[in-house]
């Protein structure tokens, strides 16, 4: 029993260290946002005959070496592409246009292609839609836990019910911040997935404790009957 406690203590300490380290990294460096959420430059190229996306991607990667590049088709006709990167300088833009002109025998003028600066999406704007559903579900789940597992102890159920999912989420975001994992579209998806898994694990844990308590009660009753 003592051994388990020590193990738990070590686990709690590790969790706390991860969360504190994550908070420090977030405060100092912020998250490493993926290109669709970070400050980026965009240029749009078009012609009449259409582009081969993979070829344009190669050209863009070549001219924007070392930078993250995203390429997307614009409209439905396949003759316009939007190239996005963390930064596109005038020289890089000229180089891309020159190579595209050579590849497709075009005469796209550099002055006709503007570099659009897109600002980053704020973390609070990304998280905002998830906060209210998170709070509502947590409140209902806590109520369910309190009704079903009140025998375990109201304080214990409440503390675990609130802290466990929050701790899991904080550890997840801390790991993302510490290891500079890009914060992108999949991050929020994984976050709500983890939340669901966390409450399911918690329910399983409570169910197990509840069954153990029931067994103990049954044993005691049997002992009383027998003697």
């Amino acid at each position, binding site marked *: 029993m003592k051994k388990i406690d020590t193990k738990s203590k070590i686990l709690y300490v590790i969790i706390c260290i991860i969360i504190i380290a994550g908070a420090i990294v977030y405060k100092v460096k912020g998250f490493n946002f993926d290109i669709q959420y970070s400050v980026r430059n965009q240029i749009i190229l078009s012609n009449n005959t259409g582009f081969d996306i993979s070829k344009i991607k190669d050209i863009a990667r070549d001219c924007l070496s070392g930078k993250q590049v995203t390429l997307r*088709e614009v409209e439905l006709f396949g003759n316009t592409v939007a190239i996005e990167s963390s930064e596109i300088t005038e020289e890089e833009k000229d180089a891309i246009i020159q190579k595209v002109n050579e590849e497709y025998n075009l005469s796209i003028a550099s002055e006709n292609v503007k570099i659009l600066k897109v600002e980053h999406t704020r973390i609070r704007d990304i998280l905002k839609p998830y906060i209210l559903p998170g709070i509502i579900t947590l409140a209902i789940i806590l109520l369910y836990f309190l009704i079903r597992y009140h025998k375990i102890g109201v304080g214990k159920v409440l503390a675990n019910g609130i802290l466990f999912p929050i701790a899991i989420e904080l550890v997840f975001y801390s790991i993302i911040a510490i290891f500079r994992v890009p914060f992108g579209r999949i991050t929020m998806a994984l976050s709500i997935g983890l939340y669901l898994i966390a409450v*399911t694990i918690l*329910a399983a844990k409570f169910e197990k404790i509840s069954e153990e308590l029931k067994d103990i009660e049954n044993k005691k009753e049997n002992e009383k009957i027998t003697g």
Partner: protein
Amino acid sequence: MKERKITLIMKILAILVICLVSFVGIYVCKTNRYENIVKDYKLSKDLKGYREIVFEVSDGTLVLDSEGNAIGNTDSYDDETIQTNNYTKTDTKVNKEENLKVENYKTVKSIIEKRLEGLGVTDYNLSLSEETGKIYVQIPENDDTDHVVSNVLQVANFQIRDSEDNSKVYITNSDIKKASAVYNTSTNGTTVYLQIELNKKGTSTLKDISTNEYKTLPEADSTSQENINEINVEATTDGENEKSNETNTSAEENTQSKENSEETEESTSHKEKQKEIVLAIDTNKMVTTSFEEPIEDGVIDLSMGSSTTDSDKISSTLQSTSTIAILLNSGSLPLTYKITQNQYVKTDITESNLRNVAYVGLGCLAILFIIIIIKFKGKGIIGAISNLGFIALYLLLVRYTNVVISIEGIVGIAITVILNYWLTIKLLKINEPDSELKRKEFTKEYKSFISKVIPALVIAIVFSFIAWEKIATFGNVMFWGIVLVIIYNLIVTKKLID
């Protein structure tokens, strides 16, 4: 024994057929080519594409009509239109230099967010440049996208002011408590109203002006039955066509209103005696009127068009009225913006990306199936087949319940598959030779599983009702998944293992 084997083989064959239908499809010959008749997945904006719009602070100047009234700015009127209509281009900028500040940019951003939500945009991505005020928006592409884009930038400056003296403004957006679109059905048909409810200050101001200065004079009343607080106007909200609406009169409703531009010379004699107010949104004068009776409750009902029984007309009027209400509720933009980029952009997540995700998923499944087979031998094979059948059925269910698949949805599918695998293992672990004990054990495991997934079901149900598409798709996917896990294992897996 032989009969049981045949039944088992039949069940496995049925599962394999479902797998074929779900993973491969049903191909039928249609106009010389084979088409899959199994419903396709509905993809979200992240997996399909979206409308990308850039809003920039307008640098346009005011455009006046021949009478000197401001009708818009140079962003909406080109030189040719200005010349042909005898309009005048002024040097007055629509956005004053002192208004170009961060607070106003932030206010505009917050109002646009409110409007997007009000207009039913369930998933958007918005970023603001605090230096230039430029706003970059991504919204899902659907039938309403153009309606949203054309309305979201309307300034929506609501005013009740003197019809002669523009500087006498009595009621503005800050006096509005709530605007809503309501309708009333009578024997003549349905009339849609824009109901504007004023706050305490607005109510008091309206009561004051309707009792004193702008009360209908007896002489005016004898020549024209003046209105009270029910006013009839035409409903148009298309921001692309910013124009003055014509005002209709409706004798049945005992109301009358006049468009400023259409005021007849006949009424000029009354105007000298009768003071009137103008109810305007931006440059659009919705109604010019006086008050037959004081408005004490602070509620103004503007009937948008006449009564009709045409359901299409009712629904379009209701939509445009709702849009006006949403614009008024969100507040007026402190700055005028213009659209500088508006295009549909396909997602950067390609089919090959999705295929790779599917391959990784298949790889993980293969590992899980190997584990289950090694652990439970023959029963493990049955468990693996049952799991495969579940995935096939689940993917069909997701398609036929019109669930939109997003990245969150894919995560939800993965979690559901894991939940099903977990329950299968629990059921495979039951190793009671006695059928009665086995049944009891099964019921116990099942009840325990349901207790464990109730929190997940709560999340699924609540998330399904959230308007934000990404959250809703996760909720929908999880809801159908959990329901199917419970039913499928009861009907299929249990029988197969038995």
